[in-house]
């Protein structure tokens, strides 16, 4: 534990939480992650969190000792988990253990209202801090709103989209936000991840398709407008919900409709595509970029190659993609080879080396524009 900082125990950890863990102290300097807890069944006990994705060390060791970790920390951070999975139950178990040990709780789990109120009440009675991160709600729009043209943000808008689920788009998003902040830019960051709310950004479930589709475009537009008016950002960074398109006839996601809806609502000035491992060729990316231009209205400006390789041989669930993680070092070697030959930025954008190139490009093309900026 570092003096003057609150020690966090983050639980239950799984590979998708790497971006939260590695960025937590960047965005919340008053905290330090002292414990990362995962059930023993994930095979991470005693290993660095990078092992979950077959990457190099990221500086945090996983333990499966929940009770002792909670005992030694100041605050328990309950990480976001899918409600139908076993780890959700483990998260609930951690909340209850934290209450038992009278530790402050920050909860990213999607709790039903009744459970949340119950925990709030108990914590209030026991004088335990309980903070639950909730999603923003899209504003309503009036008839007048939808009779007007869409609002065009003044700040340049960067979109980050994924070609398959969880191909490190989340981590790329935080890296970009951090680097832009380091350059002195005021950033408005928006995305579906719950940790955004914790880091002072915006959490929104864009893929919630309730309501008439056309008016949803206006509601998203108004949501971004409100944020811009309140925060006056130098740049808006949006992580798009769900993959950008169906993968094949079996793995359809939402056919890219959520991404399309957001793309209609806000015009992107710069787009970063996050991809599974193996897609290096310009022969692939050039037509893809053209198709994105036609479909979404923007070309691909940069590509992140993750180390997640699609496993076509897995037949457990044909409606979901399965991945195997390539060794990070090997991916890095391949990227080094192909990156220089590429006409656009292609690299591992979880690495500062490549992300700096992206930010440089964004600055040159969108921010330090000497003339011709449309206001």
């Amino acid at each position, binding site marked *: 534990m570092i003096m003057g900082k609150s020690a966090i125990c983050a639980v239950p950890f799984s590979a998708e939480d790497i971006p939260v863990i590695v960025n937590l102290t960047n965005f919340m300097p008053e905290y330090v992650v002292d414990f990362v807890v995962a*059930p023993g069944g*994930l*095979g991470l006990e005693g290993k660095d969190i990078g092992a979950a994705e077959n990457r190099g060390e990221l500086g945090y060791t996983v333990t*499966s000792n929940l009770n002792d970790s909670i005992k030694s920390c100041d605050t328990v951070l309950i990480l976001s988990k899918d409600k139908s999975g*076993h780890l959700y139950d483990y998260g609930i178990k951690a909340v209850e253990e934290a209450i038992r040990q009278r530790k402050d709780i920050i909860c990213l789990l999607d709790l039903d209202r009744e459970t949340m109120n119950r925990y709030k009440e108990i914590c209030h009675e026991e004088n335990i801090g309980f903070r639950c991160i909730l999603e923003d709600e899209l504003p309503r729009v009036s008839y007048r709103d939808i009779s007007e043209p869409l609002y065009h943000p003044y700040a340049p808008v960067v979109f980050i989209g994924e070609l398959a689920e969880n191909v490190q788009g989340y981590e790329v998003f935080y890296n970009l936000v951090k680097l832009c902040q380091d350059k002195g830019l005021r950033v408005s960051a928006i995305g579906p991840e719950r940790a955004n709310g914790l880091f002072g950004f915006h959490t929104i479930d864009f893929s919630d398709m309730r309501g008439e589709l056309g008016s949803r475009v206006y509601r998203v537009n108004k949501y971004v407008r409100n944020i811009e008016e309140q925060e006056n950002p130098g740049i808006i960074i949006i992580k798009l919900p769900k993959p950008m398109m169906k993968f094949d006839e079996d793995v359809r996601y939402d056919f890219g409709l959520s991404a399309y809806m957001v793309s209609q609502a806000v015009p992107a000035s710069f787009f970063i595509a996050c991809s599974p491992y193996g897609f290096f060729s310009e022969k692939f990316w050039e037509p893809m970029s053209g198709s994105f231009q036609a479909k979404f209205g923007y070309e691909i400006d940069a590509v992140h190659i993750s180390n997640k390789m699609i*496993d076509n041989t897995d037949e*457990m669930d044909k409606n979901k993609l*399965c991945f*195997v993680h*390539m060794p990070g070092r090997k991916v890095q070697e391949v990227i080094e080879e192909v990156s220089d030959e590429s006409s656009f930025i292609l690299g591992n954008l979880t690495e500062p080396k490549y992300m700096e190139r992206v930010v440089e490009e964004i600055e040159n093309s969108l921010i330090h524009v000497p003339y011709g900026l449309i206001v």
Partner: protein
Amino acid sequence: MEQQVKQSKPLILPFKTPLGFYFYETNRNEIVAVNEQLYKYIDAVIKDNEQEIHQFGEEVVRQYGDLKDCGYLCTNHVKEIKHPATDELELFLERKIDSITLQVTQKCNLRCSYCVYSENSYPSQRSHSEKMMSFETAKKAVDFYFMHSMDTKQPNISFYGGEPFLNEELIKQVVDYARRVFEGRNITFTTTTNATLLTDDLIDYLAENKFNLMISLDGPKSIHNQNRVFAANKKGSYDTVIRNIRKIWENHPEFAKTVSINMVINPENSYEEINKLFNDRYIRKMRCLHSIVEKDEGETVNYSDEYVNESLYNQFLGILSTVGRFKKAGVGKTTIDEIENMEHEIQKIRYGVLGDVAAPGGPCIPGKMRLFINCKGEFYPCERVNEISECMNIGSLDRGLDKDKINSLLNIGKLTEDECRNCWAFTQCILCGKKADKDGKLSAEKKRKYCQESKRMAFSKIKNKVLLFELKRHLSGEGNSLNDVNIFREVK
């Protein structure tokens, strides 16, 4: 049906039906409908019939050219046979073994006449024995699986025998241990059983632990009891099995809905008689998977005329039911399984371009999909292979996985590289190492023996897809014949 194609000619299979003309394009894994003239022209090109080729008019030649411009009638052949997973084999086996199957015992309380382990019936296989897997071996197996499944989303352990529940205590120990080892992950358990040993307590246990249970049942009493008899007294096991199935339904109706019936059909019996099994009010509600009885090498399966006729008629009804022209309830249950399987299989014929380096469609990644671990802790690609064959032994709990042997099984197409590269059924091939296993070695000669069967099955898939296409087209009033269709189109 089949044309021999040489390297310079399109790698396709032209074929016709009473209603239309088609070709299957190997390089794109697609079926293309063409008009009669174009079909004849393609046929002449394939047969290298120079004289006939020159008899066709400009229009047909233009259509042929159009198809080529669109990427069809491709003359490319795979240059090198190499499974796409070859270079990353180690990675898959290190991080993503999908499931394991534990042979908890080699002992069985039944002596089914067709069972590969029955004494004397199949000299090339092991026989039933008293061997049981120890908890020490099972524990090692679970640990091995745990260490090699970091990227496996839904770990699964299957229990196999003999009759697995003759080692019930071990199964319970393994479930308990695996739940602890895989804590936080959704581990599932699967068993195929003859269901003769299912007590109330055991049924409670299986339901509580959400087992994927598959019960072997071959037909009504008269048929089931012909083959599936108790070892001790040679009496049929039907009454015991049915009694236990009823117990499952009475005690755990929700769980019962998830239990399936695994049927081995002996087609010497009549189709109608076999399907009488589904008159039972419980069995009727269960999912039924079936296969035709397998014979050892050199032996053939006999089909009675009654079976063939009734089965074909039911297939006809089944096909009609897929297009809403016949009630599914009126189709034999075994045929419904066939039709569902057919619909699943024909989905595999869809666009995907073959590269210069590829492998025929047959093999899985041995050891990755469902690593079979026998009583002694020896590894095999799955439970279907011969356990006494040297080439099928791909390692052990003590030695680990034998990557070289796995590589040879994965790239089984290399055994017959030239034939495979020039074969129209390349993508739809179903042959894996099991079919090349001869006296413990991988044999090209043995593998070739199954090529015709594999092609027949590939063609059957293609034919079924076309049949459904034609039927839907006919029913939608688009006409009976494609002869007048002047353009090509993909069969959707």
